[in-house]
């Protein structure tokens, strides 16, 4: 049953050459690499309407240990694609791997057969085959693309997309940089997945110890400490369970560059610099800030928003935020993106010239999950403006669901575990207001409620307790406006991505807030968003934590005409 598709023998040996600059000595390649996606690095940026993308496997060495990456045109990350709104573009994607592959254009509204999900959109791209994607670009902003086949996203198949608006940028900047966050692992992703199935807390090296117990007794007293341990012990849940895969396995990357190599983007003092920030990782939420600079968020998931200025924000997997910074001093600034579980960070620098660097902050202290995160409705004193939504169906989702959130809350203004009351202004979904309103003003005709469920010990993930293999497709009627209501019955954040259609998050009062392609639902949260089923065909709907998707947190959505025909 071991379908190890990433063994070192799985790439085409005739194309074996080294990814220069990733493995070479730091000094020799520093100049070239530091530009990242600057035009000086030929091949790093592709623009126009015709693209040839070749997927292959190449030896790389990011950590001192040789590994095999999945690359596009020999690049890790894949090249930046620059498109123009209104253009019809053609992408010829060839597969030089020995296994099938695919590319999904994340956040792009394209016909179902151009969406790139094997089994739903098309057959996938077999070894030696070429698939021609062709579609009209009817949107603008920052997006990205990645493989939708097995663990190829984990091994490097991800790249940015920047689409120039037909009428020019709404928020003008003097300069821009793409910041693509990801991870690298020297482990075989198949091995990571098997390991999680065998011992799901394998990668958590911050579990509570006897020493922590004694500390808590000293600071909080014996009774409250025992009560706390009793609560978690009864649930058989671990409040330190913040990430399934940690810095133990991962080296966090910014634009494919390790923290030690320090990717650097240039600016001139006084310039407005637009940063297009993409979380292209497989299993990591990042909390990102640039000490010394305010971040003015101007777009979320490619959609312009009313500018909102913050110090820090959490970026879920597959989410995209565009921010504008205005460095006023002639000095270096550190781009600091720590993983949610504080087990590591990606890091880069904004500087007036190459070679400069600023202090790198230390990791924040590691948070613990609270009873509120478990959907128990406690700890509400911490968060003003929240009201409990007593809306949990007394459901029995079967043996593969290890908890239910008794009192899930909307909590759109909750920055999330580890970011609450940290002294910095942290972005929340409640701060985001997409300009131009929703794409559809009709009220939702019906609600579809889905619970995000799982079992930590068995590492099984699902919607409503049903894995993909056990579930029927969700059926949307072509043309209808409906409301998806997600209730997170697990203790993890889940970034949920609906292909082909936008999700328009509603406030608790039902007002339109923000349009997104990937929506993070926090532990114990209940979140509602409007969807217009205007995209005929079969679509993927899934958690973007790669190993959660593989473990069953995936559904098919079928948009059909009322008579049942798909088109």
């Amino acid at each position, binding site marked *: 049953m071991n379908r190890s598709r990433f063994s070192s023998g799985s790439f085409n040996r005739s194309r074996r050459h080294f990814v220069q600059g990733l493995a070479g000595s730091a000094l020799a390649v520093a100049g070239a690499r530091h530009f990242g996606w600057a035009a000086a690095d030929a091949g790093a940026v592709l623009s126009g309407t015709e693209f040839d993308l070749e997927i292959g496997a190449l030896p790389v060495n990011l950590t001192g240990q040789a590994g095999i990456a999945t690359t596009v045109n020999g690049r890790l990350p894949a090249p930046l694609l620059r498109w123009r709104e209104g253009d019809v573009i053609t992408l010829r994607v060839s597969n030089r791997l020995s296994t099938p592959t695919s590319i999904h254009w994340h956040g792009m509204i394209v016909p179902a057969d151009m969406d790139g999900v094997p089994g739903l959109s098309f057959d996938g791209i077999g070894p030696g085959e070429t698939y021609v994607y062709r579609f009209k670009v009817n949107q603008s902003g920052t997006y990205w693309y990645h493989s939708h086949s097995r663990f190829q996203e984990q091994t490097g198949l991800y790249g940015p997309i920047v689409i120039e608006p037909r009428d020019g940028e709404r928020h003008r900047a003097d300069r821009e940089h793409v910041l693509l966050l990801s991870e690298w692992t020297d482990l075989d992703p198949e091995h990571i997945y098997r390991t999680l199935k065998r011992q799901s807390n394998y990668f958590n090296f911050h579990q509570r110890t006897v020493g922590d117990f004694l500390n808590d007794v000293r600071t909080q007293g014996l009774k409250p400490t025992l009560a706390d341990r*009793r609560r978690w012990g009864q649930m058989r849940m671990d409040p330190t369970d913040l990430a399934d895969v940690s810095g133990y396995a991962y080296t966090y990357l910014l634009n494919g560059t390790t923290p030690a190599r320090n990717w650097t983007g240039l600016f001139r003092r006084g310039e407005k610099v637009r940063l297009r920030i993409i979380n292209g990782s497989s299993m990591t939420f990042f909390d990102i800030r640039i000490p010394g600079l305010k971040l003015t968020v101007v777009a979320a998931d490619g959609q312009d928003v009313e500018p909102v200025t913050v110090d820090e924000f959490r970026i879920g997997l597959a989410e995209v935020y565009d921010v504008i910074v205005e460095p006023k001093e002639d000095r270096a600034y550190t781009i600091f993106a720590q993983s949610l579980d504080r087990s590591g960070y990606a890091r880069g620098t904004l500087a007036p010239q190459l070679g400069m660097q600023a202090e790198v902050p230390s990791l924040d202290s590691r948070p613990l999950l609270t009873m509120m995160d478990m959907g128990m409705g406690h700890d509400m004193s911490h968060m003003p403006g929240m009201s409990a939504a007593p809306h949990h169906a007394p459901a029995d989702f079967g043996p593969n669901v290890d908890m239910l959130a008794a009192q899930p809350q909307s909590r759109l203004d909750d920055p999330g575990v580890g970011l609450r009351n940290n002294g910095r202004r942290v972005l929340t979904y409640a701060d985001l207001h997409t300009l131009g309103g929703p794409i559809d*003003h009709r009220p939702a005709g019906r609600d579809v409620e889905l619970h995000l469920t799982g079992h930590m010990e068995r590492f099984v993930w699902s919607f409503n307790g049903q894995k993909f293999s056990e579930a029927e497709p969700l059926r949307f009627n072509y043309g209808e406006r409906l409301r998806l209501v997600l209730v997170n019955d697990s203790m993890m954040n889940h970034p949920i991505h609906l292909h082909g259609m936008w999700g328009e998050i509603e406030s608790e009062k039902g007002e339109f807030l923000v349009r997104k392609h990937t929506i993070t639902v926090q532990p114990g949260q209940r979140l509602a968003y409007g969807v217009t089923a205007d995209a005929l065909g079969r679509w993927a709907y899934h958690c973007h934590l790669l190993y959660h998707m593989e473990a069953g947190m*995936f559904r098919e959505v079928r948009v059909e005409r009322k008579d049942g025909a798909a088109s």
Partner: protein
Amino acid sequence: MARAPLTLFCSALGLMLAAGALADQPQGSTDDTGSETAHVPPDPPHHEMGDMTYPRMASMMQMDDRARTGMALLDQLEWRHTAEGNAAVWDAEGWYGGDNNKVWFRSEGERIAGATQNARADVLWDHTVARWWSVQAGARQDFGAGPGRTWAAIGVQGLAPYWFNTEATFYVGEQGRTAMRLKAEYELLFSQRLVLQPEGEANLYGKSDPARQLGSGLSDLEIGLRLRYEVRREFAPYIGVVWARQFGSTADHVRESGGNPSEVQFAAGLRAWF
């Protein structure tokens, strides 16, 4: 009279300019229909994917939530210092299967002075029945000193509140023999790698089996404390202390052969899994 068309013209021009200015306004927040007009739904697919079976879909997606995994755990492979001499003791288990149905293998026993004693192997089907619990059914074979015994097995295993790993298995053998095995273990972390594992195991028999030196009722109880250091999660040497106690006629058999039915033993060993 000629001024009227001019005024009209001027107002029209003014309106157009104003409209133009509005369109140029970077702030779209006042206009909340912009997205509605800008959004272009996708065309229907030219080529539509047909229905297919789950296995075919899983193979095409390279994503299969029914895929089977396996694990082999050598929980204890240790050398114990006992009154009878040094003993090599093992306690191993392994499983293979999907999330809710697995084949489960267990074995434990000891070797003293080149002879295998008190050894057994269970092969069970493990089926998840509740959030934390599964039922197991299968067979057990006893081997080592004395005649071999074969049993049918049925039991439960799971994670009890407060993180206790528990197993309870009931056995029915030939000639009306019955037996029960109870086991519980816990893990206490001193650091992320230094783990103390208390463990208790008891065996009960419905009737005595003198050929295997077993009495009826509570036959033996073993309580161990093992402190391991996880060099890697999968590889942990340990030291431990075990209190082994026999009861009833099982204890009598031990006394007859010159042993002590209540003994504290020191152990050193290795825990490994893959």
